[in-house]
């Protein structure tokens, strides 16, 4: 881990050595959301190292999860480092601050995580590619799973901010049953006793929640302790490898939806999981897989075209000619993924809490905004 970081740091410093391609990564490495950014970065670095290419110079910067810092860093990368490609942003609000300006200045942006609906629909752009998902995807999958599981009366909750509102919209788009209740919680809220009491009183047969980061940890621990035993379903964000260990037993058996899982049974994925664990001493999360895939997409395109030839480079990216850790992967017309989303269940393997695929939630799923996208 240290060695790898050192190498990239050296690479970044050695600006005299003429690298052919400059890649700028702005991601969250400090503050509450640091775990996600660190995983994306580590996945990305792993793929770069495995490719053996030494002509890619990567500049990594920490946005501290603050939009104004992210914008400032983007200015620096575009004006001072003169990067060709940018990537790394975790949070949608930061993505909205950085991406529209960056792609308009001719930089190609590969999103390893955030997929705000604006950028998938009317705000789509030829220089913008999303390698993870459109924000609604995993929530839609959760709604679809709820149908197959036979749920007919869901209680749904999310924080009161755009990604939270999108989450509930996404769930409702696929879910066909009735709603026992729908609440927005405070962003950054740590105590969910009041919501859990409402869930208990609502007579729901299932609970859907989207509470990323520490909020999800708090909710799950408190929910497990409350004795309410209505089944829970949610997107993978609250069940990734980094968070599960902090939630502990409270998460066991919970169903969550993800486009990736460590037990997707294909050689690329097995190799990825093994090499990630060997390099960093921990299991990869879905964020790590997204960082890994993003780097591999980039490398596959670089083999066909040079970023200085923007049109050819974009065409090469659109082909998505790389081995994804999730298996089948292709881009839709708005350059967002069309992919299969799985339902997973939280299990314990030895001392470690992790996920196991229990079925497919949505096959070859594209997002709902592609039709609004008018490229050029």
């Amino acid at each position: 881990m240290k060695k790898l970081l050192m190498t990239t740091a050296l690479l970044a410093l050695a600006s005299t050595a003429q690298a052919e391609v400059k890649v700028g990564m702005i991601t969250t490495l400090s503050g509450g959301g640091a775990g996600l950014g660190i995983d994306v970065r580590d996945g990305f670095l792993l793929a770069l190292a495995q490719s053996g290419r030494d002509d890619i110079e990567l500049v990594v910067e920490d946005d501290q999860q603050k939009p104004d810092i992210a914008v400032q860093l983007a200015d620096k990368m575009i004006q001072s480092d003169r990067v060709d490609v940018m990537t790394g942003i975790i949070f949608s609000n930061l993505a909205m601050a950085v991406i529209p300006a960056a792609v308009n200045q001719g930089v190609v942006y590969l999103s390893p995580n955030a997929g705000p609906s604006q950028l998938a629909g009317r705000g789509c752009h030829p220089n913008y590619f999303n390698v993870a998902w459109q924000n609604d995807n995993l929530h839609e999958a959760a709604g679809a799973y709820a149908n197959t599981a036979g749920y007919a009366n869901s209680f749904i909750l999310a924080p009161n901010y755009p990604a939270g509102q999108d989450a509930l919209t996404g769930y409702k788009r696929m879910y066909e049953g009735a709603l026992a209740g729908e609440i927005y919680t405070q962003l950054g809220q740590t105590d969910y006793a009041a919501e859990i009491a409402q869930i208990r009183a609502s007579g729901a047969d299932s609970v859907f929640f989207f509470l990323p980061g520490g909020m999800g940890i708090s909710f799950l621990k408190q929910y497990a302790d409350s004795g309410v035993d209505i089944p829970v379903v949610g997107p993978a964000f609250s069940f990734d490898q980094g968070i599960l260990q902090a939630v502990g037993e409270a998460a066991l058996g919970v169903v969550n939806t993800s486009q990736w899982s460590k037990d997707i049974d294909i050689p690329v994925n097995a190799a990825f999981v093994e090499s990630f664990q060997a390099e960093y001493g921990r299991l990869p999360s879905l964020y790590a897989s997204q960082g890994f895939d993003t780097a591999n997409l980039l490398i596959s395109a670089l083999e066909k075209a040079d970023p200085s030839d923007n049109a050819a480079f974009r065409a090469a990216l659109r082909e998505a000619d790389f081995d994804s850790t999730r298996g089948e992967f292709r881009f839709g017309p708005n350059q967002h993924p069309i992919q299969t989303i799985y339902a997973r269940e939280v299990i314990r393997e030895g001392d470690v809490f992790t996920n196991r695929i229990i079925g497919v939630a949505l096959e070859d799923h594209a997002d709902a905004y592609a039709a609004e996208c008018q490229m050029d």
Partner: protein
Amino acid sequence: MIRERHLNILLLAGFLAVPLYALAVDEPFTITLATRAAILALAAVGLNIALGWGGLVSFGHAAFFGIGGYSMGILAFHAQNYMPLDLGFAVLEGTKSMPVIWLVATLTSALAALAIGALSLRTSGVYFIMITLAFAQMFYYFAISWSRYGGEDGISIYVRNEFPGLNTLAPIQFFGLCFAALLLALWLNARLVASPFGLALNAARQVPVRVQTVGLDPTRLKLVAFVISGAITGLAGALFADLNRFVSPSMFSWHLSGELIVLIILGGVGRLMGPVIGAILFVALDHILGGWTTHWHIALGAILLGVVLFARGGVIGLLCGPKGQA
């Protein structure tokens, strides 16, 4: 000891020289950093009028910074989407013109400062600190749930707003605008301090009872200072939004209020150039330390502690001695 006047001139000359040098060697990002420092300095100059001369420790100036930012965001949002802005009593077109945006930003934040100040000045000391924080937090939570303007995601403006006769997209020209605004605010600040109002305000901070016994109302003096202060910080907010071409609720966050206070203490409370030195140092430290280690906050914390423990009166106090000498 350096004379404060000499230091001030030196400082402004240096502040201007850095981006010009950066322009010469084609380092546009350095210009962007200097612009950021100029805007933060402007916001802190505003706060310093309330805090340094009026003795009003406002922990809620992010409210005005954010109002300035959202004034820009909303006007430019409607202009870029060709959507008229319906106020209920009137329908306005949005605008991309900086002078108009600045006027709106200054006026709305002055109005907000009048309302917040009138209520907050009923209290004093720590209570004042906390009630101003409370008002800023209300704006923060309101902005987060104001889905029409992006909520937590904020508003992206694709192209920087326009100023007649200038190309604001050129970093050096936009820096020029921000630097001019800063100079203007500093000049206003200097005139204000030497004016009859400044004399009375200065006394109202030190001995309110005395001010009353000469027939003046210290609360009213402080309220006016608070309004001027809020208006300047609001203008800085509009410029900051234009620098980033983006506004979000984080402009209202208490971290920002805290940072502005820290800037001023770092530079020197109640010193004309205190906020400027503070802002330059803060931006420079952020940039240099941030490039040096991911754990740079520890180093920043240690430096700030050093300033408090060993350099009472901030950097200016260290260089020029306590206020009022020389």
